[in-house]
């Protein structure tokens, strides 16, 4: 039997019992549909996070926190008056222990570290156009980690962390409120920031708008440069309280071309930090954690569709066993006429593959159709604040892989019935009533 004939016959045989085949295809459809959607969700979210990392990360900073305690001695630790302070509140960025000035100095002395700045929480009460009236003041959140990375800019430049002047990167949605016609016209203008100092006195400071940033999942609020942060942080520091920081940011000096920071530079500094009982993470490391969590969730969702597929595969086994049973005489006849066991096997396993292809292709197409509609609706509605996020990203490679995997599952389900058919004794089949 020719291969082309095997394929056409397997396809025709799959449609001999239309209702039965349709039901089996339907059960595969469910699995293919959900699997396509979950992989698209994973691809969409991961793609977004990766893009964000690419726009935000400068690649040359390490976020440094005290190393998590690895103390294995029993009982409480002896008090060390020069040791690190414990934080009074839990905080999500670092461990319970805080960094002190000795730690910062130690980091500054490390090879390959250019600058070290502690991340200080500052509270800004309002922002207003330069010289604006009281009713032109708007609340403003400052992103404490704006010194770590770049902003996803609409216009202007990144913050200059080494500049002496106060600089700010405004979120895009403040433009209207602050009276700027568009992003370009805001660049170089001054805005006024108001804050409350340690003595509860109202203070104001002018800052130059150097950039306008897109809202992003990872960097909410305005970005301010080190000079501005220092000014406000010092004014807000409670007098007499020792300096202690949750996180510090180490900017690395690269050894690569044009001073680029290479992976080995990062590893070097990480090793030195580890020796000093500190832990350094790049932005990518931190986002890697996020991605691991996302992948975990996607994995659980996919597991459900795999369960659906498993159920469907039993459906295929059942369908084909019935098909083999019904065609016992036909199989016997073909074998009597010299058809080899191998060809009988391929005839039936291919029938399974055809069913698998139908179910997976229709399921994937339906998922793409419905998913694209949902994705568009979400981007226009609830997710409009996250430009660049396509929640369901249908990567052709992923879709093809899903279809191929389901066809493989179908083939494997077809092995048992096909083997039964191939091993049938022609005489027994011909005597079969």
């Amino acid at each position, binding site marked *: 039997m020719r291969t082309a004939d095997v394929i056409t016959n397997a396809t025709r045989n799959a449609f001999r019992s239309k209702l039965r085949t349709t039901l089996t295809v339907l059960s595969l459809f469910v699995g293919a549909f959900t699997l396509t959607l979950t992989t698209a969700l994973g691809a969409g979210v991961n793609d977004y996070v990766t893009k964000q990392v690419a726009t935000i990360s400068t690649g040359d900073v390490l976020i440094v926190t005290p190393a998590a305690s690895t103390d294995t001695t029993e009982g409480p630790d002896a008090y060390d008056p020069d040791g690190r302070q414990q934080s009074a509140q839990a905080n999500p960025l670092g461990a319970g222990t805080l960094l002190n000035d000795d730690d910062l100095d130690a980091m500054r002395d490390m090879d390959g570290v250019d600058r070290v700045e502690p991340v200080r929480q500052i509270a800004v009460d309002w922002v207003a156009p330069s010289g604006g009236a009281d009713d032109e003041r708007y609340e403003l959140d400052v992103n404490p980690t704006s010194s770590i990375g770049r902003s996803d800019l609409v216009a202007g430049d990144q913050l200059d962390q080494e500049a002496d002047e106060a600089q700010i990167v405004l979120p895009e949605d403040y433009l209207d409120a602050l009276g700027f016609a568009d992003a370009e016209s805001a660049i170089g203008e001054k805005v006024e920031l108001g804050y409350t100092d340690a003595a509860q006195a109202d203070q104001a400071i002018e800052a130059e708008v150097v950039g306008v940033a897109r809202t992003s999942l990872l960097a909410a609020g305005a970005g301010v440069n080190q000079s501005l942060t220092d000014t406000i942080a010092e004014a807000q520091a409670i007098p007499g309280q020792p300096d202690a920081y949750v996180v510090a940011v180490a900017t690395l000096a690269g050894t690569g071309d044009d001073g680029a920071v290479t992976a080995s530079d990062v590893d070097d500094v990480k090793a030195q930090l580890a020796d000093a009982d500190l832990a350094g993470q790049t932005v990518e490391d931190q986002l890697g954690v996020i991605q691991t969590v996302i992948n975990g969730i996607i994995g659980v969702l996919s597991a459900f569709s795999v369960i659906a597929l498993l159920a469907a595969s039993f459906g295929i086994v059942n369908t084909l066993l019935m098909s083999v049973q019904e065609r016992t005489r*036909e199989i*016997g006849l073909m074998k*009597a*006429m010299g058809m080899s066991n191998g060809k009988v096997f391929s005839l039936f396993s291919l029938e399974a593959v055809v069913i698998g292809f139908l179910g997976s292709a229709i399921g994937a197409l339906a998922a793409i159709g419905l998913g694209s509609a949902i994705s568009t609706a979400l981007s226009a509605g609830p997710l409009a604040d996250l430009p660049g996020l396509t929640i369901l990203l249908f990567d052709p490679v992923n879709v093809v892989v899903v279809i191929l995997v389901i066809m493989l599952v179908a083939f494997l389900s077809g092995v048992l019935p096909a083997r039964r058919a191939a091993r049938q004794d*022609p005489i027994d089949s*011909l005597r079969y009533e």
Partner: protein
Amino acid sequence: MTTSPAPGAPPVLSAQALTKTYGSGQSRFEALRGVSLDVRRGESLAIVGKSGSGKSTLMHLLALLDRPTAGAVEIDGEDAASAPVKRINRLRNERFGFVFQQFFLTAQQSVLENVTLPLLVAGVAPRERTHRGMAVLESLGLADKAKNKANDLSGGQKQRVVIARALINEPDVIFADEPTGNLDTATGGQVEDLLFGLQRERGITLVVVTHDDDLAARCDRRVTIADGLIVEGAGR
């Protein structure tokens, strides 16, 4: 293909001391108990006997559809047991034609598809399959039924379709198990005429299993089987 057997040429089929045992223990049953038989090229041989005597079993063994418990079958003097499966499959596909005790037509497929099944198995291209299928249906007066579902034919038409299927690969030997068993006398007669005509015109060897005395009488030779043994006309 109207070659008369060359003197001294080995018989097309030769069975030596065939035994076939079904089951084991209590249900053990000896369907054949030592059958030796030669089938000469171009002859028509009738295998007769009572129901359950082992006629179909013998035919299946001769047609290499089954393997004997003991004994040997030779094709053109060559032992079949030692031949690889692939060769046996090809042999059945290219040199044998089958008419089984039941029609074994695939009901939902067209007459043409049923008839060309051996060519499909052989791997013949679709165009040639259709061409040869139509030719053979033409010669059996069934050309106008080619597109019909096999299920929609009368009994006699079905039997002719089955014979067309047995003929399509231009076999050397046709095995026919009760070819007229399901038919009335008139149609049965037509089918017989058809088979014997082919045997005469094309030199096809005919092995017919029957319990119909008239049919057996039209054959060149007959062997009678009773309880798994040849009781008359082994011819060797």
